[in-house]
C-alpha cells in the first residue's frame, strides 16, 4: 500500500499507531489524524459518491466545511452515524467507516448511470420531470428518488448513547481558537474576566496548526502555541473547550455549543456521555471563526484528487501527508502559491501553477522560479480527466479580450485550487446582524450587529497572522472592558506571513460549451454552474428562489464552500452586482449536530417527568396496568389471573356496587384558598353560590372560562369561614391555579385571599361501596360518621389510623363514598391498613377505567371527555350549579349571549343502543336519518361509551343538537362495521333516585 506520509512533518503522534477500516479494508494512521488525513496518507482519495449523479468524490477540504467526504461510521452496538465528515472525524483504534451512496461498491456503482443522464436532473427537475401522472407521485417518484438520491442511510437501532447538557455564564465567550481567538482569549483572560474559549477542532490553534514556519514574537508558531495554551490553562478564570462547535447564536448572547466528549476515545468509560450541549449566556462574544477557502468553478472540478490548496497545505504541515506525487495548482489567489511552495520544499513535484489572473505579485513569481516551478499566468483550466482520481488537467492560455487559446494537457495526481477566502460569518448571521458587501475583497463582511458581539481576524476579512493576532487581542480587550475588566492589548510581531491578494469570479473561462460543462458550484447537492444559469433563464431572480429551485446551498454544509461561487454565477447571469442579488440566510446549527445533543438528558426514563402518587408503588406491586393522565401515570385496572381489561373492569365495577372498592385519587388537583375574602373569591370564580355553604360541608363547583364554556369542575369543601379545600380535575390542576392567580393578581388585587397548591400535600384514598363506612369506622377518631352527623357532601378533619385526615363524604360512583385525605407520606401505609382490614368485605382495588364506567352509569361528566370546550353548563345539564342570584362570576355575561341560549345547541344526553351488546365508539358521529345521501347531516357525537356490568348492557353519553328535547327518539351511529341505532335517554342509568348515596 502506498505511503504518502512525509518524515519529519506534521503534528500527529508517530509513536501511536491507530488501526481502522474503510469499506472493510484495514488501514493504519496515527493518533491525531482525521479519517481524511489517514486515508490520504494511504493514497486514498476516492471516498464517496455524490448526492444526485453518483459521481466519484474525494476529499475537498480539511475542515468542517467539507461537502464531499461524508462517510458512515460504526462505533458498535447500534452506534451507526451517517454523513460524518471524514475531515473532522478523529481516527481511533478499531474505528469502522464506510463510503455512502454506492452500490454494489464504491468503484463500481450502478447509480452512476445518473451521471450520464445528467440532462434529466437539471435545475428544478423535481418540479418538471415528475409532474404527471399524479398517481405516480407517492408510489413511484417519491420512493425511487428517495432511494437514488439522498445522503447516507439513517440508523435503524435506537441510539444507545447518553448525552449531557450544561448551562454556563461568562463575561467573554470566544468562538474559534485560531490566531485571533487565542489572542482574544489571552487578553480577556489576563483582564480577570471569566472566559470560555471554544474551537470545533481536536486541538486549539486553528490555522497556526498549519503554519509551523511562521514566527510570532520571535517564537516558532508551534512553540508560541504551546506557551499560549499553557498560559490559558494557568488562568482559573478561563475555560478552554476543544472539540466544541458553536452551533447557534440566539437572543441576548445565548449561544449553543456542542462538545464532543468521547467519540475520539478508544475506550469509552461506562455511562460517559457522548456529547454535551453547553448553553452559554455571555456578556460579550468574540467571533473568531476564520475564513473558508472557495473552490474554483471549472469542468471536472469535483474529481477525486481535486482539492482546496489550503487543505493540501494543512495535510502537509499539520498531518505530514502529501496529497499526491505530481501536483498542479490552479488559483485566482496568492495563498495557493504557498501550498505549491510548501509541497515543492517537501519534495513533491509541482508540475505547474496556473493563475487565472493576468499578473501576480512579483515575489510569488520569483519564489516559484527559485523552486523551478512552471508558472502559467493568465491561463485557465478547462477540464480534468481520470475515472476515479484525477490523472490530468487541461489548461489553456487566455488572451487579450478573454479569448481562450488552445489547450495543453498536464498529467497530475492531484489538482489544488483556490478561489480566495470567504469570512465565516455564519454565527453573526444568526443574530440577524446586517452584512455589507466588500467589493475589493469580493466578500460579505459583518455590518451592524444586534447583539453584544464583535468579530476578529479573517472572520471579518482581516487576513494574515499579524492582523489576526492584533485584531483578536483588541477584540478580547474590548470585550473584557465592556464586561467591566480593563486591559491593554499588545502588538504582535510576525515573520513568514502568507500573501493574501486575489480575485473572485464566476466560472473559469473555457473554450468549450458552458452549457455542457460539469463545473460544480455546490458539491454536496450536485449543483453545477449551468443549473444556476438555467434557473435565471427560467425567470428566477432572487437568490432565495434560485437557491430553492436549484438546491444550491441547501445541503447539510449549508453552502459553506459554494454560496459565494453560486452568487457570483447568478450575479453574472442576472447582469446585476452581487449585493443586489443578495445572500441567503444562514440558520443554526453551524454544522450538523446529533439529535442526542439536543435531547441531552431527556431520553429514556428522563425523557419526560412521570409523576407517581405515594400509592403508585403498591399498585405496581399488585399488577396494575397504568395509563398516562397528563404527566401522571395512574392505575387503569388491576387484572387478576389473566383477565383482560373488559373482565377486570366488570369485576371491579361489581365489587364497588355490591360491597367495597378502593381507589387512588391522589392525582386530583387541590388548591387551598385562604383569607377573609375566600368566599367572595369563590363566588367570583365558580358558577355556584358559596356564601351560604357552611364549614364542614362540600359542594360541586363548576368553573367556566370568560367565554362561558366549562373549563373544570370538582368538589369543594369549606374548612372554615376563611378556608376552602378546592379539588380540580387531574389534568386541570396547574391550569386552574394559574387562571385563579391571573384573576386575583390582575382583576381583583384588592381581595385578601391567597391560593396554595396542595395537590401533593395529600394522598387521597377513595372508598366506595355499601360497606365503605363499616370499613373506616374503627379507624377514624374525632368524627361522628353516622349518616345524620356526617351526611353525603359533608367533610371534617380528624384522624384515621392515627394520622391527621381531611375526610370527605363524596361519591363519584353513586355508592356510599368517602375520600380520605392524609398527609402524602402516610398515604401508602393508610391504604395498606385499609386494604388489609377490608378483606372481610372483599375490598377490591380499582383503576381509572372502572371509575369512568361507574361515573358514566350515574351520568357524572368528565370535563375534557364529555365536554370539549364548547359546552355551557346548560348544554351539560348543569344549570342547577349556577348561582342565579349572584351578581357576577367568570363567564356569566357570555351565558346570556343569544347563541348560547339557542334551542339547537348540542346537549349531553344518554344513549342506549338497540342491540344491548354493542358498545359504540367514543367520538362516533350521530345522524337522524341513515338513508340520507352522503355527506349526511351530523347532529352530534358519542362522548363516553362503556359496557355496564351492572346493567348487563352498553351505555353511552352523547352531545346531540337539541338532545334533551329528543328523549325517546331513535338516532343512528355509523361505525366501520355497520350503522347502529340507539335511543336517546336521560343521562342517569343506575339508581336515578340516589338511594345508594345515603346507604
Amino acid at each position, binding site marked *: 500500500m502506498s505511503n504518502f506520509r512525509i518524515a519529519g512533518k506534521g503534528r500527529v503522534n508517530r509513536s501511536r499507531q491507530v488501526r481502522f477500516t474503510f469499506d472493510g479494508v484495514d488501514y493504519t494512521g496515527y493518533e491525531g489524524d482525521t479519517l481524511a488525513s489517514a486515508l490520504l496518507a494511504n493514497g486514498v482519495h476516492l471516498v464517496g459518491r455524490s448526492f444526485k449523479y453518483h459521481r466519484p468524490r474525494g476529499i475537498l477540504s480539511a475542515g468542517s466545511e467539507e461537502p464531499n467526504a461524508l462517510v458512515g461510521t460504526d462505533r458498535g452496538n447500534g452506534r451507526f452515524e451517517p454523513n460524518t465528515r471524514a475531515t473532522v472525524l478523529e481516527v481511533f483504534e478499531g474505528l469502522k467507516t464506510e463510503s455512502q451512496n454506492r452500490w454494489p461498491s464504491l468503484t463500481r456503482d450502478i447509480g452512476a448511470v445518473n451521471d450520464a443522464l445528467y440532462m434529466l436532473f437539471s435545475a428544478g427537475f423535481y418540479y418538471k420531470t415528475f409532474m404527471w401522472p399524479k398517481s405516480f407521485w407517492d408510489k413511484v417518484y417519491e420512493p425511487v428518488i428517495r432511494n437514488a438520491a439522498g445522503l447516507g442511510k439513517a440508523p435503524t437501532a435506537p441510539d444507545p448513547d*447518553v448525552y*449531557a*447538557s*450544561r*448551562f*454556563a*455564564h461568562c463575561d467573554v465567550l470566544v468562538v474559534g481558537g485560531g490566531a485571533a481567538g487565542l489572542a482574544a482569549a489571552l487578553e480577556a483572560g489576563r483582564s480577570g474576566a471569566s472566559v470560555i474559549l471554544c474551537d470545533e477542532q481536536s486541538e486549539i490553534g486553528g490555522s497556526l496548526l498549519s503554519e509551523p514556519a511562521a514566527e510570532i514574537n520571535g517564537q516558532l508558531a508551534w512553540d508560541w502555541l504551546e506557551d499560549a495554551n499553557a498560559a490559558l490553562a494557568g488562568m482559573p478564570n478561563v475555560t478552554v473547550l476543544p472539540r466544541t462547535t458553536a452551533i447557534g447564536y440566539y437572543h441576548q448572547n445565548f449561544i449553543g455549543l456542542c462538545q464532543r*466528549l*468521547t467519540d475520539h476515545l478508544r475506550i469509552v*468509560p461506562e*455511562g*460517559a*456521555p457522548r456529547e454535551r450541549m453547553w*448553553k452559554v*449566556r455571555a456578556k460579550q462574544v468574540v467571533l473568531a471563526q476564520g475564513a473558508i477557502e472557495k473552490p474554483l468553478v471549472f469542468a471536472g472540478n469535483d474529481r477525486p484528487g481535486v482539492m482546496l490548496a489550503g487543505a493540501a497545505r494543512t495535510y502537509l504541515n499539520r498531518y505530514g501527508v502529501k496529497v499526491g506525487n505530481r501536483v498542479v495548482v490552479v488559483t485566482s489567489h496568492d495563498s495557493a502559491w504557498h501550498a505549491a511552495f510548501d509541497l515543492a520544499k517537501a519534495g513533491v513535484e509541482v508540475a505547474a501553477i496556473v493563475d487565472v489572473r493576468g499578473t501576480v505579485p512579483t515575489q510569488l513569481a520569483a519564489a516559484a522560479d527559485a523552486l523551478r516551478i512552471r508558472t502559467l499566468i493568465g491561463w485557465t483550466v478547462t477540464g480534468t480527466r481520470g475515472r476515479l482520481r484525477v490523472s490530468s488537467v487541461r489548461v489553456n492560455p487566455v488572451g487579450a479580450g478573454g479569448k481562450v487559446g488552445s489547450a495543453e494537457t498536464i498529467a497530475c495526481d492531484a489538482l489544488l485550487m483556490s478561489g480566495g477566502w470567504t469570512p465565516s460569518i455564519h454565527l453573526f448571521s444568526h443574530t440577524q446582524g446586517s452584512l455589507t458587501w466588500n467589493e475589493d475583497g469580493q466578500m460579505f463582511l459583518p455590518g451592524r450587529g444586534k447583539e453584544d458581539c464583535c468579530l476578529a481576524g479573517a472572520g471579518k476579512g482581516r487576513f494574515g497572522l499579524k492582523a489576526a493576532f492584533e485584531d483578536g487581542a483588541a477584540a478580547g480587550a474590548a470585550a473584557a472592558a465592556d464586561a467591566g475588566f480593563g486591559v491593554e492589548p499588545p502588538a504582535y510581531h510576525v515573520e513568514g506571513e502568507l500573501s493574501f491578494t486575489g480575485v473572485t469570479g464566476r466560472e473559469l473561462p473555457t473554450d468549450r460549451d458552458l452549457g455542457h460543462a460539469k463545473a460544480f458550484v455546490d458539491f454536496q447537492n450536485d449543483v453545477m454552474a449551468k443549473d444556476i444559469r438555467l434557473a435565471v433563464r427560467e425567470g428566477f431572480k432572487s437568490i432565495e428562489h434560485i437557491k430553492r429551485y436549484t438546491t444550491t446551498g441547501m445541503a447539510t454544509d449549508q453552502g459553506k464552500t459554494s454560496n459565494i461561487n453560486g452568487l457570483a454565477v447568478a450575479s453574472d447571469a442576472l447582469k446585476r452586482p452581487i449585493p443586489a442579488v443578495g445572500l441567503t440566510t444562514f440558520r443554526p446549527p453551524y454544522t450538523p449536530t446529533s439529535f442526542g445533543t439536543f435531547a441531552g*438528558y*431527556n431520553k429514556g*426514563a*428522563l425523557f*419526560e*417527568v*412521570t*409523576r*407517581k*402518587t*405515594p400509592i403508585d*408503588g403498591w399498585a405496581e406491586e399488585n399488577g396494575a396496568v397504568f395509563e398516562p393522565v397528563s*404527566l*401522571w401515570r395512574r392505575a387503569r385496572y388491576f387484572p387478576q389471573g389473566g383477565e383482560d381489561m373488559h373482565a377486570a373492569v366488570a369485576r371491579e365495577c361489581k365489587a364497588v356496587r355490591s360491597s367495597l372498592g378502593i381507589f387512588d385519587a391522589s392525582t386530583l388537583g387541590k388548591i*387551598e384558598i*385562604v*383569607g*377573609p375574602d375566600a368566599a367572595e373569591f369563590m363566588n367570583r370564580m365558580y358558577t355556584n353560590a358559596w356564601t351560604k355553604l357552611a364549614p364542614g360541608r362540600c359542594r360541586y363547583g363548576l368553573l367556566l372560562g370568560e367565554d362561558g364554556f366549562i373549563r373544570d369542575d370538582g368538589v369543594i369543601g369549606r374548612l372554615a369561614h376563611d378556608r376552602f379545600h378546592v379539588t380540580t380535575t387531574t389534568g386541570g390542576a396547574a391550569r386552574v391555579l394559574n387562571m385563579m392567580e391571573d384573576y386575583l393578581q390582575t382583576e381583583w388585587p384588592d381581595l*385578601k*385571599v*391567597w391560593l*396554595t*397548591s*396542595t*395537590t*401533593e*400535600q*395529600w394522598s387521597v384514598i377513595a372508598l366506595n361501596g355499601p360497606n365503605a363506612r363499616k370499613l373506616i369506622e374503627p379507624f377514624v377518631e374525632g368524627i361522628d360518621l353516622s349518616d345524620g352527623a356526617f351526611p353525603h357532601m359533608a367533610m371534617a378533619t380528624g384522624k384515621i*389510623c*392515627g*394520622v391527621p385526615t381531611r375526610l370527605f363524604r363524596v361519591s363519584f360512583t353513586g355508592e356510599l363514598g368517602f375520600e380520605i385525605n392524609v*398527609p*402524602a*407520606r*402516610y*398515604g*401508602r*401505609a*393508610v391504604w395498606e*391498613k385499609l386494604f388489609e382490614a377490608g378483606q372481610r368485605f372483599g375490598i377490591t382495588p380499582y383503576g381509572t377505567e372502572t371509575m369512568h364506567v361507574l361515573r358514566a352509569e350515574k351520568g357524572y361528566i368528565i370535563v375534557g371527555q364529555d365536554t370539549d370546550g364548547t359546552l355551557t353548563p346548560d348544554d351539560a345539564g348543569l344549570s342547577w350549579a349556577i348561582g342565579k342570584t349572584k351578581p357576577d362570576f367568570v363567564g356569566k355575561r357570555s351565558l346570556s349571549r343569544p347563541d348560547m341560549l339557542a334551542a339547537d345547541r348540542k346537549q349531553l344526553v344518554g344513549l342506549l343502543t338497540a342491540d344491548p351488546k354493542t358498545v359504540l365508539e367514543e367520538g362516533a358521529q350521530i345522524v337522524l336519518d341513515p338513508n340520507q345521501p352522503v355527506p349526511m347531516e351530523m347532529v352530534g357525537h358519542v362522548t363516553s361509551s362503556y359496557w355496564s356490568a351492572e346493567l348487563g348492557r352498553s351505555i353511552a353519553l352523547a352531545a346531540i343538537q337539541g338532545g334533551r328535547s329528543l328523549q325517546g327518539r331513535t338516532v343512528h351511529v355509523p361505525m366501520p362495521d355497520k350503522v347502529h341505532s340507539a335511543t336517546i335517554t336521560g343521562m342517569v342509568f343506575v339508581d336515578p333516585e340516589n338511594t345508594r348515596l345515603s346507604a
Partner: protein
Amino acid sequence: MLLANHPLPGKTIPGDTASRLSIRAAEDTARFSLRIDPAAVQAAGTAFGTPLPTRIGGMTATGGRSALQLGPDEWMLTAPVAESDGIADAFAALQEPHSLVDVGHREVGILVEGEAAALALRSAIAFDVEAMAVGSGCRTLFDKAQIVLVREDENRFRIVVWRSFADHVWGLLQAVSREIALGI
C-alpha cells in the same frame, strides 16, 4: 404512627472517590407556605418566633427555624417536624389577614454537596448558580421540574421539590454525578 413513605429511589448518590460531590435525600421538615401583606411581616415574624426576611431571595434562621422569602408576599417557613402544630397554632392566633398552609408533605428536600455541587446543578438550571449568594434561595426550574433552590453554604445546596417530580430530579442528578465522577 404509620410508616412514612419517601419517593426517592435510593437515599444517596455517593459521587466520586474524591468526594467532590455527594447527593442525599434531606431529613423531613415541617414546612409552611405563608402569604401575608409585607406590611405585616413583623407580626408574622413574632408568630413564627424568627424574624422574616424582607428581601426576595433572602433567608433568616434561628433555633432550627428558617424563613425564605420567595415573592412579594410569600415566604417558605421550615422547622423541625415536631414543631409543626405549634407553628400552626401560633399563626391561628395572628390577627393580620394571612394564609398559612401546611406543605410539609408536598415537597421533599435533596442536599447537593461538595466542590462540584454548583457544577452539577448547572446541568439543569438556567440561571447563574455560581453567582448565587450563600444564604439565599429562589423558586426556579430544574430541567422540567419546578423547585426551590437554597444555597446553604458555598458548597451545599438544597433542592426542595414536589414529591412526584423528585424522581425526575433525582434521576437527572444521578446522570450528572456519573459524568462528574468520570471527570468528563
